[in-house]
């Protein structure tokens, strides 16, 4: 099985998954007890006005026809327009992407660096003070729900610093195009928030996995042929120990999207996650469909990348 055919198969599978997501989300919002026309028109409206809105939005047509129109627009790259504001969903997603992307990329980098490096340190110094401190830290990290950690960071760091007249750390979002330092100041607390819980899980995972690997025969062989400890651990041990970590990453990407929703809400970043909460609670179906589809696309692509990394780390794994 070559790499090209693997890629083609996975992309086809990804398209099937995405199609399934559109059907599921569409059905979910059809059975929802909310009436978008009534929502749009406000409280005091006549039946004629509602019928008018329904006709304008195409909501009086059978579900299958509505779905067909949606799919047709989708294939032309048009995600529809918001029921509430009338803006195009494409525009909404484009506007809200930068904060979400900043949050996810920065958060994942922070979480992998901290999680894996503390895990390695903790495994190579098993049962020392450092190991015990990191194990306790992991337990605390796992205990903290994301939104609680965010609120506590606001309370314990943002509030005292700003009261002391130190205004670098801010809430809300500011793009890196104006000033990189301002961007980091706005993003640092959200990054810590989204990374902490996962970093704790990855520390635990890396530590356990590396301890297992270091007990293997080939590590003893590597030691006995006189390799330096550093080389044994980093070249022979870590590489094998990272395979379960990478496969866990594929599973956790879905969790990450959830973490983004919560983190954006706590810090008022105004990204896609926050937009989705508003859209869902107001029953703005086109926006919800757009967000869910984008999240699904993100999960599919990220899983593909994870699988490729997996096969690079462990040559025994065949791409299939």
């Amino acid at each position, binding site marked *: 099985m070559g790499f090209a055919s693997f890629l083609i198969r996975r992309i086809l599978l990804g398209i099937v998954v995405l199609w399934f997501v559109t059907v599921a989300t569409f059905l979910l919002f059809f059975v929802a007890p909310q009436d978008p026309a009534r929502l749009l028109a406000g409280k005091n409206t006549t039946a004629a006005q509602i019928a008018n809105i329904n006709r304008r939005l195409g909501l009086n047509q059978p579900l299958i026809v509505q779905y067909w129109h949606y799919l047709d627009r989708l294939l032309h790259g048009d995600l529809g327009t918001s029921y509430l504001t009338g803006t195009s969903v494409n525009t909404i997603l484009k506007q809200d992407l930068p904060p979400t992307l900043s949050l996810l990329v920065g958060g994942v980098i922070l979480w992998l660096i901290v999680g894996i490096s503390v895990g390695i340190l903790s495994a190579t110094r098993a049962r020392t003070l450092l190991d015990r401190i990191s194990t306790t830290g992991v337990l605390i990290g796992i205990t903290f729900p994301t939104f609680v950690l965010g609120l506590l960071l606001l309370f314990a760091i943002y509030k005292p610093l700003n009261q002391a007249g130190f205004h670098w750390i801010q809430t809300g979002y500011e793009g890196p195009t104006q000033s990189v330092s301002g961007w980091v100041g706005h993003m640092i607390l959200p990054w810590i928030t989204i990374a902490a819980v996962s970093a704790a899980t990855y520390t635990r995972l890396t530590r356990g996995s590396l301890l297992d690997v270091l007990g293997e025969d080939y590590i003893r062989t590597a030691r006995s042929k006189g390799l330096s400890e550093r080389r044994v651990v980093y070249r022979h041990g870590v590489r094998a120990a990272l395979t379960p970590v990478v496969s866990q990453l594929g599973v956790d990407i879905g969790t990450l999207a959830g973490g983004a929703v919560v983190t954006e809400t706590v810090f008022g970043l105004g990204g896609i996650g926050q937009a989705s909460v508003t859209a869902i*609670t107001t029953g703005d179906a086109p926006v919800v469909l757009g967000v869910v589809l984008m999240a699904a696309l993100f999960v599919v692509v990220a899983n593909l990348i994870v699988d490729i990394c997996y096969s690079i780390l462990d040559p025994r794994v065949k791409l299939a």
Partner: protein
Amino acid sequence: MSLTELEFQGETTGSGPVQVIQGRSPWVLAWRRLRQDKVAVASLIVILLLALLAILAPVIAAWVGHPPNTPYTNQGLSSTGLPVAPSSTFFFGTDDLGRDLFIRVLYGAQVSLLVGFVSTLIGTVLGVAVGMMAGYFGGWIDTVLARSTDAVLAFPYVVLALALAVVFGPSLLEVIVVISFFSWAAIARVVRGQTLSIKEKEYIEAARSIGASPMRIMVLDILPNLIAPVLVLATLAIPTAIVFEATLSFLGVGVQPPTASWGNLLSQAQAFYQTSWWYLIFPTAFLLLTTLAFNLLGDGVRDALDPRTERLFAAQRKRGRARSKGAKPAATVEGAS
């Protein structure tokens, strides 16, 4: 598995009165090990105290004289309309409407523990059923069940939970349904793996050869061997469910005010963290204490049910002691680096 403990039940040889040595069941042994684990016992006490406070919440509210949903606009709010700090009248201070925060936190414990236990119970029953069928039958049944398990595990579940929450309309029942729907998959995956290895054992073959139905084999022969791992997973699923409920309520799609839940208390507290620390800190402390206690208890149950880990830890401890005795200076240098 832990069910392979040796039992010795016979007469001792030698002189003196005949003594019968009683065999101890693996469960008795596990319970003994759990009782010796100080952290687990402390966690269990914390959880029991919390449950007691939650059950007695109406009694305590009556005793203090502050019903959970009554706003005290005169005593409970400052002259500028802000919540008042903890005092002998309001132990945890008040919220933004002048309600007694202490009583509301106790009522919140009711919601958290109820959701935690009920949705874990439903999720566990579903997960065991799905995992056992997938593992036992194999073939296309396994393919369908295992794929859907993976799909549920990989989906951005907060997003879907939000959508489901809106469809069902936010309520306590909705929260339990949504959390149960997402908690079975992790359990199903482990149960499937265990079932795959158990079904190859000789005694299952023996059961099949005397004509036992698949249902009978699954319930009578496989299920008892799954109880230990499932118990551990379920204990660890409770804090996850509690956090999930708090998150949904925090986002406004879970338990709705005026019913108090730790999540919706924190959601309201978010606007007041600059001025009223108690509003944020007390619900947070209860939430963290609860999840920490369940996590520690789960770890304790795992160690108690799996004799292998205990021996492993004992060996590690012994080795650790020998090491620190043998080379004290080196160990401290390593620890400090």
